[in-house]
């Protein structure tokens, strides 16, 4: 009996050395990106460390994914849509340290995206920039920023444009209120809005992450939509981090850290570019310069003082977004 137990425990140990498991909890549109990246990383890890790594992915709305991790989903790494949702892992459950975002280069965002305007083929309403969206008779499709993390970027991009063009927060507020008056449907998530715009043919312009705009073209066929890049947009930084409490429990810190670092490698950057995220690496970015047009990009930190502040002012209950819909305004 003793020999059997010993034998068993020995075999688990040797198994643990030859194979390791990782869980990457991500948000919706990264499915294809991480399917490809996981394969590449598994090969890389096998080659360098002689260890087999099996990576599971989980996808869903960014906020919902963060809540699952807070409530106990044992993610080794999270790769979400906005820093606000990763902040919550610290704020609500202390799963990571407060300074998590400074642990990796570029605000812990190995790839970026931005918000673009998707219009119908031939651009019948002649939409060139943000200020065309507030014109009467133009219908804008964007998800509800109260339920969709991605939609918060859309809102803030519009705000930043108006603030720059008209010079004050007051004017920006009026502009954004006007814009949302042109929104006929507030879907609960980005995928819902995509269906509303692409399949139900509602609306003239769809505010979308650049990577998703490319995916729409791929999915619904090129030639049905045009992508309009506005004069100014926002630098969308979907950040990544190791979940410290979980990797310590799972004994996966080393491989989890290597996994995220590999996102910054030439190979990782290449995969990001191929999946329509803007690479950070200048060399790889240069290669994809034709795909991603140059555009003036503002950042959340410089323009809005970071996600915590932006969330509180604009999207929390009683914030600016709620005021837009107050009856009688």
């Amino acid at each position, binding site marked *: 009996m003793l020999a059997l137990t010993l034998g068993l425990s020995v075999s688990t140990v040797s198994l643990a050395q030859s194979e390791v498991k990782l869980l990457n909890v991500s948000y919706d549109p990264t499915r294809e990106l991480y399917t490809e990246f996981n394969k590449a990383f598994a090969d890389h890890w096998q080659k360098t460390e002689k260890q087999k790594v099996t990576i599971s992915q989980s996808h869903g709305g960014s906020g919902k994914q963060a809540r699952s991790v807070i409530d106990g989903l044992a993610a080794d790494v999270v790769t979400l849509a906005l820093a606000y949702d990763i902040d919550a892992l610290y704020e609500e459950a202390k799963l990571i340290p407060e300074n998590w975002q400074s642990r990796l280069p570029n605000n812990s965002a190995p790839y970026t995206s931005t918000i673009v305007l998707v219009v119908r083929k031939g651009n019948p309403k002649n939409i060139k920039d943000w200020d065309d969206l507030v014109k009467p008779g133009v219908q804008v499709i964007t998800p509800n920023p109260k339920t969709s993390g991605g939609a918060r970027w859309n809102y803030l991009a519009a705000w930043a444009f108006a603030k720059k063009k008209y010079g004050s927060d007051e004017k920006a507020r009026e502009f954004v209120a006007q814009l949302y008056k042109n929104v006929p449907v507030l879907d609960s998530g980005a995928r819902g809005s995509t*269906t509303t715009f692409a399949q139900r043919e509602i609306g003239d312009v769809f505010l979308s992450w650049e990577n998703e705009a490319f995916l729409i073209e791929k999915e619904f066929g090129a030639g049905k939509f045009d992508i309009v890049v506005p004069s100014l947009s926002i630098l969308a930084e979907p950040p990544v981090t190791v979940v410290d409490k979980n990797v310590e429990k799972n004994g996966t810190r080393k491989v989890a850290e290597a996994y995220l670092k590999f996102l910054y490698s030439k190979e990782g950057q290449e995969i990001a570019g191929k999946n329509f995220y803007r690479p950070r690496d200048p060399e790889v970015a240069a290669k994809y310069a034709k795909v991603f047009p140059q555009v003036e990009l503002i950042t959340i930190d410089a323009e809005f003082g970071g996600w915590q502040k932006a969330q509180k002012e604009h999207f929390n*209950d009683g914030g600016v977004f709620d005021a837009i819909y107050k009856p009688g305004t």
Partner: protein
Amino acid sequence: MRSLRKPSVIPGFGLSLGFAAFYASLIVFIPLAALFAKAFTLTWAQFWDTVLHPQALASYRLSLGAALIGASINLVFGFIVAWVLVRYNFFGKKIVDALVDLPFALPTAVAGIALTTLYAPQGWIGQWLTPLGIKVAYAPLGVVVALTFIGLPFVVRTVQPVLEELEKEIEEAAASLGANRWHTFRRILFPALLPALLTGFALSFARAVGEYGSVVFISGNMPFKTEITPLLIVTKLEQYNYAGAAALAVVLLVFSFILLLLINLLQHWSNKRAGG
């Protein structure tokens, strides 16, 4: 105590009562207690602020109102469907019978997307309704449509077995005693079916109040207009405001509980009347 100890097929009254209590606590009471506990981490002022916010009030009106309308529609048409399925024989009856359960089996998001595809202004049905000025998708009416869809099986499946038990001979007897059709329905059939109809109505309503998945696709989610309470709960969760979300959930629960209790009382009363 004697009356409780009547011999029964399942032995061990104490044991089975204990099990029932344990099981009910595990599945129902403990999660509900946790919900209430979370809601009351708020101060009273915060609690009332959350649940009496104008946006919340507008959402209760829509959620409870649409659920009531949906359940009422199901009450009438669910009864007709059950009647047809029990009393008539026709080609394809088994298939229709199986179709009734589909709303149970379909993931609600799929149901929502399918309904929106039909009722959107460009949709198969929507394109005919739009010129008439009827807006279904992205309007409160869409919420009613979705809630009617998901609630239909509850009425059909509760009424059906009772209807099967009602022998046709009773109707014949009533007729031979001089009752006309309306009389037979009102005096003979309806009282016998009423408890089942009420149960179906209550189940359909309760299911509809909490529905999220299908509604968010068809409603359009415009604040104050087409925002259901479960969506507001999700917006609270997006702000990691668990207590606020629980507070709204408590309101829905209390409303539903009161309504279900009333229906139960009504049922009790109708049973007694039928029995006496």
